[in-house]
């Protein structure tokens, strides 16, 4: 990476000198591209390698030459991954859980955020700070107690338990973000609706929600990606008898990876990885602008 830091150094920094000569500029731009292409290769390389390896037999994988094309494009590894390694089931489990928990997070989160942002009542600030303080605590700290709370409620190893926990742990950031958003919306339209006799609930669903659309989209994407990628909570919660049918994708892949390791049989694992990553690439290709905006929304403040 030293190359890049030095690139612009072809022209020494000193005040009041003439703009860089054209030739130096070209060299600098060229070196910029070298650095950027290098990082693009480092980023995409492992993913491309996984794709190539997914078509190879186990013997071929052990030959080395990681970026050689496979002898033949065999899809049998995919059949194995889908049916024997249960990727299909894990995938559906993940979609089901994330669909419901994100919908729940958004509904409950925006309701709470709206009330906390725009209504004055005793205890408002206390409740708001209770939610926001959740951002300061590491989930690891709650791990053991959370396990026993769920066990006590008979929710261990159930989708219901997992979904409720996903929602609960997504609320702090969702409320923090949306409360600020609701606060920034103008009051005039809402007042006009009040004069027209609209109920509080109607104002929320028919006026405020549509007005907050851009914020809601960002935070929805943020929650979908965050919950889809969860690994720690499913590992803790989806345990116990009967849970092996209810594993989520992240858990499932990790488990396939362990059993593949015992047998040094990698081809199925690579196919499973491709089946996991490919949908992400497709979704990303369609919504990359919204996804980038949604995921960075929290940090930009």
């Amino acid at each position, binding site marked *: 990476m030293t190359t890049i830091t030095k690139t*612009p*150094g072809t022209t*020494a920094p000193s*005040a009041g000198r*003439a703009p860089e000569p054209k030739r130096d*500029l070209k060299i*600098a731009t060229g070196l*910029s591209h070298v*650095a*950027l292409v290098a990082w693009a290769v480092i*980023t*995409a390389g*492992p*993913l491309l*390698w*996984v794709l190539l390896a997914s078509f190879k037999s186990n013997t071929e*994988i052990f030959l*080395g030459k990681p970026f050689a094309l496979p002898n033949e494009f065999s899809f049998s590894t995919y059949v194995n991954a889908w049916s024997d390694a249960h990727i299909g089931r894990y995938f559906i489990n993940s979609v089901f859980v994330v669909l419901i928990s994100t919908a729940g997070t958004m509904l*409950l989160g925006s309701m*709470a955020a*709206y*009330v906390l942002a725009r209504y004055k*009542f005793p205890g408002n600030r206390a409740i708001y700070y209770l939610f926001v303080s*959740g951002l*300061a*605590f*590491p989930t*690891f*700290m*709650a*791990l*053991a*107690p959370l396990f*026993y*709370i769920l066990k006590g409620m008979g929710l261990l190893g159930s989708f219901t338990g997992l979904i*409720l926990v996903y929602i*609960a742990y997504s*609320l702090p950031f969702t*409320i923090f973000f949306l409360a600020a958003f609701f606060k920034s919306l103008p009051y005039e339209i809402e007042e006009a609706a*009040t004069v027209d006799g609209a109920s*509080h609930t109607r104002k929320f669903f028919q006026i405020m929600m549509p007005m907050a659309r851009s914020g809601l989209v960002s935070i929805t994407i943020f929650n979908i990606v965050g919950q889809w*990628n969860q*690994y720690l909570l499913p590992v803790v919660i989806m345990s116990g008898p009967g849970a092996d049918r209810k594993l989520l994708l*992240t*858990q499932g*892949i*990790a488990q396939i*990876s362990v059993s593949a390791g015992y047998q040094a049989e*990698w081809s199925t*694992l690579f196919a499973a990885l491709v089946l996991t*990553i490919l949908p*992400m*690439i497709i979704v*990303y290709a369609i919504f*990359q602008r919204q*996804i980038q905006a949604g995921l*960075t929304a929290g*940090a*930009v*403040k």
Partner: protein
Amino acid sequence: MRHGKYPFIIGFLVVPVALYAVFVVWAYIQAFYLSVYEWSGLGPVENFVGLGNFRKMWDDTTFWQSIKHNVFLLVFLPIITVVLALIFAFLLNVGGGHKGGVIRGVWGSKVYRIIFFFPQLLALAIVAVIFGRVFGPDKSGMINGLLPESWSPWLFLADERYAMGCILVVLVWQAVGFYVVLFSAGMGNIPTEVYEAAAIDGASRVTLFFKITIPLLWNTVQVAWVYLGIAAFDAFALVNIMTVDRGGPDGATSVLSLMIYRNAFEFSQAGYASALGVVLFFLTLTFAWVTLSATRRESVEA
């Protein structure tokens, strides 16, 4: 006009507050409570040990080893990621130089941004599985497969000296693209006139980078630093999935998060796990506080 305000407020708050209270607030309160008990996780909680768990930690070599590894990540993950991301973001946004007095990014900057960002979308667990194979200790591993035929394979994760370095590499690999996009957004908010004026004065790109970009982006860099530090305290998925013997070889990749998990669910030490959690909490808070106060500057407005 005001009628029905309280029923409405209560109706909207009751479910979220209840869920949050049961699964989050109560769990954290219990974590503090359990941290002063010796409790296996089964039966009643009755063996009060006061600060016993913390004293045990003090004498626990695995604990100090884990702290050492977390500190290693805490130092290197933010600095490497932020420096790389700042450089790439700068090249993408300003690196094209000025043509006809207009500052531009390099050609194709959109495509680079899309590729760089993608790893952020992958679960750390998936990334861990991929890199477990990239670092495979024989010819089936990507890197060893690329090495010349005659070389003996590198062990990577199976070598205690390099295992932690491998973890760091993977975390950086995943994080850089996100911060490139984040910093790019920040740079986009810097008015181009600022750059153009400086460029007309003959400022080189190095000068632009240090005298304009960095000061105007300082708040974003601060936020990035805190986020990356918090990520350095996690790394659970990587260590649990990717490393030899989970945290090995011989404890060479043990981190606090893994210790908490294993004590709670494998070693029947729920009390000790909670005490470790309390320590993790105070470490995270201290880190965030130190970072924010140490990097405070007069804020510069664009």
